[in-house]
């Protein structure tokens, strides 16, 4: 029997609870609850004033009903009344109700805050603690506003009771997490840090959570805590298990405090002071040594507490990443745990090793455990442990063990849990690509992947294998051969048919010499799968067939036969029917030359980030990170990017020209007038000698004036002087609309009239971009004096965007021809107006003069940033100044389809963060705009309201102009 009575005797409550428990059905329960609610409502509304006890009882019943999962819409006032009761129990219930059921009813908040204020100043420690608990439980902004000033004072006051100090510290922490801008530590900093020296262990334990959080945000202000933490830690580590009395937990001295001290130290680099560092290393060694000592108790609590400290120490060692000795010891310790009989320890060891694998000192040591980890993957009974094992294999993989690991993962896939198959498939695909030395191995692996786990192979994976095969001609023959063999299997996965269709359609000729895989055999093999496939695959196969007609004229008759059959040409599916009709027609009327042109081998894909990696990142935040970083370094050589140049060559080009940028940056001040600009311009006249043309203007005048300013300088125009005699036309009225079309996409037709079509393709990386412009002459007559210029309309501020043609266009564009031009773009600082593109040419003697806005908008320089919900909200709050936010509420002008919205947000260039916004209907995104001058972090939140067909779009960034511009751009997209 406990020392004191259990309940405080609310008999009516106990009766009510047992009534509820006795309810046989959900309906009966609801009935009973409704009865009780009616009763309570009438009591609260009754004429008779309720005494404190009854009020408490009813409030408690309401709380119970709420916790059962029912809505409560009254009783708040009565609960608030209880707060000002001078009876402890009533106050306590009142506070509990408020903590659980707080709502931001402003009237009530004021009353609640009043009651809290009274209790805080009551000097009664019990009441003060109740009030502090309530603030900590609610943690709303209103409360922070009211109490963020008062609580630090309570925390550091000399006469505050220990228990109140503890509550105050954690209360402040909660307020700081919720509203960091309102909690100003300034003058309290050093006194708060010195709480680490407090005599009372409980006070230190509570205070250190606060200090850790504050340190991680303002490391410099709190850096004195390092030496204090080290000495405190050293005292605990060296104390006997009985020294700390009740703070010893199952023979482990102060495990909570120790872990938190170790966690605090992880906010800082290794101590610079030799003595402090020595002491810390000693502590870490002692902790590692203790792990080898026999346990002082058989209880699991003892070993858990001890190992909690050990894992935290290992985290610190990994964080420092500078003590090879300790790192190797840590790795060995984890290696022991890998074979421990406690499942928990095996799990944690696998998890910790993942981070250890990325350290250069311990990577090799981690690799020695490969057999154990593989064994874990095969034999662990618990799926979550197996998943950690798979993660670790992924993390420890490098060129030396890739084949083994990929083989193991593949064989595990055959029996893997359904819940992790898709992720495993992605990981195998990434490793195979990343560490492929010979691409035949890569092709084998992916085809195996499709064979084993076809259902889990997402589109990204088979797209990727095709991209790679097309880009690497050394593997094409092998791929064709292998896929041909794989298709022989009686039952093969549809994804295999897709890959097979595509690859044989492109490269079937490479194996056609062998009579066993003659064209007709290939075709028959593919066609034998046709009827088993879904519509998209059939469509793909039809395309493969028409490619066959081009590759192997001898199959033409057979294939035409197939295309002509009713099941194709009269297929109920429009897409299939259309393909059949068109391909049939194409094959019968086009000459072989035309066929060969139309059905030419696919051009290489542009090098870009692996679509699989992107998918894995999307799927899984933290686990993938370490490998991603590494991946950045290696991708170039992997995908054969090195020999093909790709984005890299573009960067070097921009670099070689950075000298010109210098000139522009050194231009005196934003107030420079147009003349000042002119004087700077001749310097850039050196550009043509470098084989390029430099066009950059940051004039102070409006767009029209500035473009005029550009044009009549001969060296700035890419056109022959004769054609440049007319000023560029003002931008077309629809060019803003055209610009909006390209905010969320990079490729497409920018402009089209009866004469000319302009297509663009662009790619961006960091603050650099490259845009391909395709000018198509739609007429049969040649354009003469064809010339193009780009210019940046200036603004009052000197927004600079560097645009650079890699070469001028030929002045003659033949009828029906297309000419290409490339612009390199560098963003120096953020900007608002889009650059202008002016095209002039003579068509049949008439001068055509077209000005367009080039779709270069600030969002193109977004780098997506993945972050967890906590980070997001924290950053969001940090950007809370009014000018950092831009918001728009607008009507939806298109449908509100989720996928379309997502695609647009991704197209914007930001990372779309899943599971961040509490409301799943909303979208939040994060990205960093990369300019040469600075990086501007940008957070976005889009709240669709399907009923009202409205959106609310909120942008926050560290720069007001960016928030506003991105908000304006994006608002036009929905």
């Amino acid at each position, binding site marked *: 029997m406990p020392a004191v009575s259990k309940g405080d005797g609310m008999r009516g409550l106990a009766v009510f609870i047992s009534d509820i428990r006795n309810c046989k059905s959900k309906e009966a329960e609801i009935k009973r609850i409704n009865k009780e609610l009616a009763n309570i409502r009438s009591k609260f509304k009754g004429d008779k004033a309720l005494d404190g006890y009854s009020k408490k009882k009813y409030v408690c019943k309401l709380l119970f009903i709420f916790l059962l999962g029912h809505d409560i819409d009254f009783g708040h006032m009565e609960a608030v009344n209880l707060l000002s009761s001078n009876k402890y129990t009533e106050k306590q219930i009142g506070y509990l109700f408020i903590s659980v059921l707080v709502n931001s009813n402003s009237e009530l908040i004021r009353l609640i805050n009043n009651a809290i204020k009274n209790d805080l100043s009551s000097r009664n420690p019990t009441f003060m603690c109740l009030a502090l608990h309530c603030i900590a439980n609610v943690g709303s902004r209103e409360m922070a506003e009211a109490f963020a000033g008062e609580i630090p004072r309570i925390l550091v006051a000399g006469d505050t009771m220990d228990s109140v100090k503890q509550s105050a510290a954690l209360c402040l922490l909660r307020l700081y997490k919720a509203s960091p801008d309102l909690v100003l530590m300034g003058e309290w900093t050093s006194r708060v840090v010195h709480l680490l020296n407090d005599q009372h262990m409980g006070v230190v334990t509570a205070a250190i959570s606060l200090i850790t959080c504050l340190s991680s945000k303002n490391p410099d202000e709190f850096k004195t805590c390092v030496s204090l933490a080290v000495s405190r830690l050293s005292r605990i580590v060296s104390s006997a298990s009985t020294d700390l009395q009740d703070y010893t937990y199952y023979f482990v001295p102060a495990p909570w405090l120790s872990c938190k001290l170790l966690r605090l130290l992880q906010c800082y680099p290794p101590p610079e002071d030799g003595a402090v560092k020595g002491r810390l290393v000693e502590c870490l060694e002692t902790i590692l040594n203790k792990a080898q000592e026999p346990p002082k108790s058989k209880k699991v609590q003892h070993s858990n507490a001890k190992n909690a400290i050990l894992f935290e120490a290992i985290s610190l060692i990994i964080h420092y990443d500078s003590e090879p000795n300790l790192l190797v010891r840590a790795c060995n310790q984890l290696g022991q745990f890998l074979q421990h009989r406690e499942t*928990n320890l095996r799990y944690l060891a696998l998890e910790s090793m993942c981070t250890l694998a990325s350290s250069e000192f311990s990577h090799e040591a981690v690799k020695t455990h490969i057999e154990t980890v593989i064994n874990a993957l095969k034999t662990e009974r618990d799926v979550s442990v197996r998943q950690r094992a798979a993660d670790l294999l992924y993390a420890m993989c490098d060129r030396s063990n890739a084949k083994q690991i990929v083989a193991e993962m593949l064989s595990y896939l055959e029996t893997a849990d359904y819940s992790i198959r898709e992720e495993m498939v992605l990981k195998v695909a990434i490793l195979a690509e990343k560490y492929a030395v010979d691409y035949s191995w890569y092709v084998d692996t992916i085809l195996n992947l499709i064979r084993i786990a076809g259902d889990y192979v997402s589109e990204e994976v088979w797209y990727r294998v095709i991209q790679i095969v097309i880009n690497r001609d050394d593997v094409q023959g092998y791929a064709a051969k292998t896929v041909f063999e794989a298709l022989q299997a009686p039952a093969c996965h549809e994804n295999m048919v897709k890959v097979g269709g595509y690859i044989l359609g492109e490269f079937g000729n490479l194996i056609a010499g062998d009579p066993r895989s003659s064209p007709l055999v290939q075709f028959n093999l593919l066609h034998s799968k046709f009827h088993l496939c879904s519509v998209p695959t059939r469509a793909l196969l039809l395309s493969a067939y028409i490619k066959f007609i081009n590759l192997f004229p001898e199959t033409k008759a057979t294939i035409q036969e197939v295309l002509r059959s009713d099941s194709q040409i009269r297929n109920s599916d429009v897409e299939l029917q259309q393909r059949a009709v068109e391909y049939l027609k194409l094959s019968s009327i086009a000459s072989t030359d035309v066929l060969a042109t139309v059905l030419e081998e696919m051009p290489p894909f542009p090098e870009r980030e692996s679509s699989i990696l992107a998918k894995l990142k999307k799927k899984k935040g933290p686990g993938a990170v370490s490998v991603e970083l590494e991946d950045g370094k290696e991708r170039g050589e992997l995908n054969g990017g090195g020999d093909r140049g790709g984005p890299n060559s573009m960067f070097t080009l921009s670099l070689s020209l950075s000298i010109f940028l210098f000139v522009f940056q050194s231009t005196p001040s934003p107030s420079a007038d147009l003349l000042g600009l002119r004087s700077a311009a001749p310097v850039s006249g050196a550009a043509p000698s470098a084989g390029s043309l430099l066009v950059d203007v940051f004039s102070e005048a409006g767009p029209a004036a500035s473009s005029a300013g550009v044009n009549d300088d001969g060296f700035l125009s890419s056109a022959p002087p004769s054609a440049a005699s007319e000023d560029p036309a003002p931008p077309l009225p629809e060019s803003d609309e055209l610009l909006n079309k390209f905010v969320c996409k990079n490729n497409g037709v920018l402009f089209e009239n009866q004469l000319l079509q302009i297509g663009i393709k662009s790619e961006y990386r960091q603050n650099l971009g490259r845009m391909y412009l395709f000018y198509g002459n739609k007429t049969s007559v040649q354009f003469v004096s064809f010339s193009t210029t780009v210019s940046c309309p200036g603004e009052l501020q000197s927004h600079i965007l560097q645009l650079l043609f890699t070469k001028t266009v030929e002045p003659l564009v033949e009828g029906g021809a297309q000419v290409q031009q490339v612009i390199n773009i560098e963003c120096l600082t953020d900007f608002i107006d889009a650059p202008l593109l002016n095209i002039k040419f003579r068509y049949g003697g008439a001068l055509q003069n077209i000005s367009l806005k080039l779709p270069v908008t600030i969002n193109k320089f977004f780098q997506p940033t993945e972050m967890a919900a906590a980070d997001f909200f924290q950053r969001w709050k940090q950007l809370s100044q009014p000018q950092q936010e831009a918001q728009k509420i607008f009507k939806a002008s298109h449908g509100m389809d989720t996928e379309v919205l997502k695609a647009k947000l991704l197209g914007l260039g930001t990372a779309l963060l899943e599971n961040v916004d509490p409301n799943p209907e909303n979208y939040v995104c994060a990205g960093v705009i990369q300019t040469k001058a600075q990086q501007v972090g940008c957070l976005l939140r889009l709240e669709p309201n399907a009923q009202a067909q409205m959106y609310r779009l909120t942008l926050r960034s560290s720069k007001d102009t960016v928030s506003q511009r991105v908000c304006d751009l994006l608002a036009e997209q929905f």
Partner: protein
Amino acid sequence: MRFLLLFSRQGKLRLQKWFTPIPEREKKKITRDMTTMVLARKPRSCNFLHWKDLKIVYKRYASLYFCCGLDAEENELLALEMLHRYVELLDKYFGNVCELDIIFNFEKAYFILDEFLLGGEVQETSKLVVARSVEASDMLQETERLMEIILLFPLFFSCYHGGIHEQACILTLGEMDLHTHQKDSGQYRSGGLTTVQNDGVVSCRMRVCF
């Protein structure tokens, strides 16, 4: 720590504590996910899971599952012991705690938790200190109650007072309830007398027949 949930093997939620602001709808979703996920685990599996960007630590005590969600940088083993310490505190307070104690005295379970954890961080790890402060508040309420009873029933009290003990007498249990329920339905009448001695303080529980 982001949240702490206690639920039964049938998936009934017995206690929920959220340490970060989360909308009600999301809370229900998390609760549903946690119960289905944790209840589906085989016995003797490990106590840790990954769920979205959180680490989930759970442990089963008799019929009740204790389950908490941690941020990525928090220590799982320590959280496991945090759950254990909470169970010990409940056990110390209720004396061999069981699920029913937590159902019927849910408010106490919340109070004890507040003494132990605040804002998701450990406030006090000493079992003695936490137990003492919970007891202290219980004593406080008992004293209040005594004063009330004395005021309400001066005659009644004086006639019993001499007969029980010389030390402080504390009347507890539902007299007030009896008082009101008698008016409601007239059927709650019981009798009995218990005395408990501890630390030199005697508290008497009286159940009185009217």
